[in-house]
């Protein structure tokens, strides 16, 4: 079996997730080549073919141009699987490659089964197995699902080229707002999730955090609702944290949030839904309504 791994590069930096792509290929027992629109001074180290286009020439991610480049590598390599990370790059580009090849795509793969690929569904509460019915399959891998493999060596570089016209023009990057709260050093973080229910209840989260001398964090829905400032968001698109204690209040545990807090020491979850995926990471899971439970816990901790 042959895999073509699709590496990612932003602003001249190769993404660390390349190791997960190699880890996955290794698990499949597959031979792997990589295609990368990247920087010549930050290349992946492995033994194999690297189909390469220089980002200094091709610019930052452009779907139409990258589609042509990856398809060029597919044509030369003739792989059985084209493998992306399930990232803003991967979920954008993979379906375009799959469509051009009329191939099945399996998104956010978390495991390999005898008859297909395991994926999460229903907000991470359920799993299912998707079996590709086409000779070649396009995959995107759930970040964190496969252990990274450290590879060494110098790849054989094969330069690829493509037409650079595109209907989409990259303008610029907009960095996240500066001057926010740095949650990365907090020893205790109390995280607020959708289950908090309304803005007034955020006060219960603050009070508990204060007892511990900790910080308040939040999952995406709370930020989107405007209940807390964006700099307190924990997850893929927010901060990654690793406190000694993480208290997840009304957080269901979407994979994007878990990715940001899985380095926590002890995880206490408070949720009314005993099936919430946060249970996967929780050392202690309290099935309760946080509006009733938190004030009592806070009062007892103050004593």
């Amino acid at each position, binding site marked *: 079996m042959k895999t073509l791994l699709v590496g990612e590069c932003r602003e001249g930096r190769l993404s660390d997730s390349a190791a997960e792509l190699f880890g996955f290929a290794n698990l499949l027992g597959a031979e792997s080549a990589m295609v990368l629109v990247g920087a010549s001074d930050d290349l992946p180290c492995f033994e194999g073919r690297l189909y390469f286009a220089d980002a200094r020439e091709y610019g930052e991610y452009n779907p139409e141009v990258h589609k042509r480049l990856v398809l060029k590598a597919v044509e030369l390599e003739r792989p059985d699987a084209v493998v992306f990370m399930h990232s803003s790059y991967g979920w954008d580009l993979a379906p*375009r490659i799959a469509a051009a090849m009329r191939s099945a795509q399996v998104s956010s793969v978390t495991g390999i089964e005898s008859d297909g690929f395991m994926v999460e569904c229903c907000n991470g509460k359920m799993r299912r197995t998707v079996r590709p019915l086409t000779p070649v399959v396009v995959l995107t891998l759930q970040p964190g699902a496969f252990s990274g493999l450290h590879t060494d060596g110098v790849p054989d570089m094969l330069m690829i080229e493509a037409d650079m016209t595109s*209907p989409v023009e990259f303008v610029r990057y907009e960095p996240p707002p500066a001057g926010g709260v740095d949650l990365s050093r907090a020893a205790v973080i109390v995280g607020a999730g959708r289950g908090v229910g309304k803005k007034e209840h955020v006060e219960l989260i603050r009070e508990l955090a204060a007892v511990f001398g900790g910080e308040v964090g939040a999952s995406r829905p709370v930020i989107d609702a405007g209940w807390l400032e964006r700099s307190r968001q924990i997850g893929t698109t927010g901060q990654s944290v690793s406190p000694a204690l993480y208290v997840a209040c009304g957080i269901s545990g979407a994979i994007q949030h878990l990715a940001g807090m899985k380095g926590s020491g002890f995880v206490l979850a408070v949720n009314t839904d005993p099936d919430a995926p946060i249970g996967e990471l929780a050392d202690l899971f309290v099935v309760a309504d946080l509006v009733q439970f938190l004030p009592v816990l806070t009062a007892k901790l103050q004593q």
Partner: protein
Amino acid sequence: MNILVCIKQVPDMEARFIPNADGTWFAETGLAFRMNDYDLYAVEAAVRLKEQLCGAPEVTVLSIGPDRAVEVIRKALALGCDRGVHIRDPYVTERDPWQIASMIAGYGRSRNFELIFTGMQSQDRGSAQVGVLVAEQLGIACVTTIVGFSWHNGTVTAERELEGGTRGVVRLKSPALLTCQLGLNTPRYPTLPNIMKSKKKEITSLLSDATALPGRLSSVTGFIHPERNGSGLVLQGEVSELADRVIAVLKEKTTLLSRGGKR
């Protein structure tokens, strides 16, 4: 100017899911259905653009699904879409993303939509494929995961959400398809007058033609409730007692409460 919004009806994610008879998806019994969260932002983006252009664009909202899918079309009409299209397909859950995209592209192909909005993914399947596949099948430009959108004389400026909170700003000309991320805007609530008005809006009902569908590219087996790997302790009961037990566990397993309850 014509705008298309593609929406999906999904179960409430708080529900307890039980596999159906053949183990490929959830059994529908007891589930409450509503509009996919991401699609609410797509509807809002389309309605806001209509307002920006003084009502000129006609906004069509499309959903594929069994009879119940008409409920989310009605909601979108109450939120300001002009007309609805319901592609009735009782077997929708057996279709793969390529087939779903084919149905949408089939509807859109001859109708010259200048903009198509979709959610970036559905909450139940979460493949994040259908929007992009529609654009590819129609041969139009596509930007995914947008958290910012503006329109000026046929030019779209969109902000893509990238890892670490960075945004990638892109510019493109219509026709285009945009997949919407949570937080793109603040979706409105339907008002009573708008709900009343929406009852007069037209919903075209089309029957999906299975014979015209391309073959599926993937199939699904083994829809299961994952086994908990977490070895965590689960506590239930009366809140005061729960709090005592939580404190006892924290004292035992962490050093955070070792000095008089405070660090």
